[in-house]
């Protein structure tokens, strides 16, 4: 009986795969009318520093060193976008953000630097399908089925091993920075700060998004795929004199 059931299941699966292939064949050689070019970026930012302070007039500061950032972009034909046609090509633009030697440190009142992280690198790859007029309505475009063509963004973030160090004074300093930047208000601004004017177009887009969610509910349709790759991460706590206290290691083995 079991053998019969297994055989039936296999046949059903084969039939399903055949049906999928038959459906996919209509997209074989389909012209997406994509743009074949992109804007070539070559941007270099050398060690931008974002600084947080507990009080602006005091010398100590929390420094976020973004390292040497290099942003490039290029476009090429790739496979993998047509879900049931593995060899079918489509134009993709990749923007690559490469950050080298990033780090977080605290400049103490004495003028000494306390490095909260060892230098680490971050590489971000952002892939998107090139522009095509056939996808002007995104997921609701009548001519393209997003269940056949993956039109979402793909983001891949790769870190080198990150080592973090904490001591009590550093933690206290971070809390003081949060106090100025999150809790404090100088009381001069009575109304709220304006960031964005909510328009009818935004509301329409919101309703459209609801339609998309309802239409593709429970199916594998993605707007964005984010993948993060951490080889390992450790948090070390130190005494005030810099001696070792404890270490937590997260390893992607």
């Amino acid at each position, binding site marked *: 009986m079991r053998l019969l059931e297994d055989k039936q299941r296999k046949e059903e699966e084969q039939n399903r795969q055949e049906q999928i292939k038959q459906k996919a064949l209509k997209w074989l050689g389909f012209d997406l009318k994509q743009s074949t070019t*992109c804007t*070539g*970026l070559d941007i270099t*930012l050398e060690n931008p520093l974002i*600084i947080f302070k507990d009080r*602006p007039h005091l010398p100590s500061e929390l420094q976020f060193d973004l390292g040497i950032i290099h942003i490039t972009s290029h476009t090429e034909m790739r496979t993998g976008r047509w879900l049931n046609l593995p060899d079918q090509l489509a134009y993709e633009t990749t923007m690559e953000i490469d950050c080298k030697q990033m780090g977080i440190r605290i400049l103490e009142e004495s003028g000494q630097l306390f490095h909260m992280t060892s230098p680490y690198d971050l590489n971000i790859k952002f892939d998107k399908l090139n522009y095509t007029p056939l996808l002007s309505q995104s997921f609701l475009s009548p001519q393209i089925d997003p269940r056949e063509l993956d039109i979402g963004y793909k983001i891949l973030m790769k870190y080198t091993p990150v080592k973090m160090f904490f001591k009590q004074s550093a933690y206290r300093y971070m809390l003081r920075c949060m106090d100025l930047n999150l809790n*404090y208000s*100088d009381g001069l601004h009575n109304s709220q*700060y304006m960031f964005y004017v909510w328009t009818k177009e935004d509301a329409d887009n919101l309703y459209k998004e609801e339609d998309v969610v309802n239409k593709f509910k429970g199916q594998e349709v993605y707007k964005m795929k984010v993948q993060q790759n951490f080889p390992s991460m450790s948090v070390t706590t130190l005494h005030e004199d810099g001696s070792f206290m404890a270490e937590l290691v997260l390893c992607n083995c």
Partner: protein
Amino acid sequence: MQSFLIFDHTNYPKTLNPASISHQEATYPSREILGVRNKLKGKPVMELECIMYWEDTCPLKKEGFDKNIKVVLRSLRLLHMQEYMFRLNDYFFYQLMPPLSDSNPFKWLNERLDKGEIPKIVDGVAHFDEKHEHSENVTSREEEEKKENAKHIQPQSEPSLLKPPSNIG
């Protein structure tokens, strides 16, 4: 350009209130909030190169690119203070730029508020106009009704106080 610096004179977090403090008596501390400095001699702070190709047959054009942008920025240093940045953003993008780019910056906003396309904010709470949901249908129906009425009813001629008589001037 060897350096580009922006200073804060508002004495944040003890911000000087321009409405209550005499500007002659007040002392303005000078605090750098954004700085781009050149650490390498002989090199500029910022390099910008933008190439746009007029035709596809341009011999300089690289395959796969419609334009090329090259930017190099050295040694940027930004002091982030939350409320201060909110204030700058609010002032620059919503109070300074609209009057420069539009002769009547509030016209567009007021029109949309009247139509109910954006919420009215009262005491920090957004109030949506309930009529807005059917506003398009209502307006179109009202317009149709008005047109139909105008066909049947002849408007009475009343002297307008706003319009000057045509024989003057």
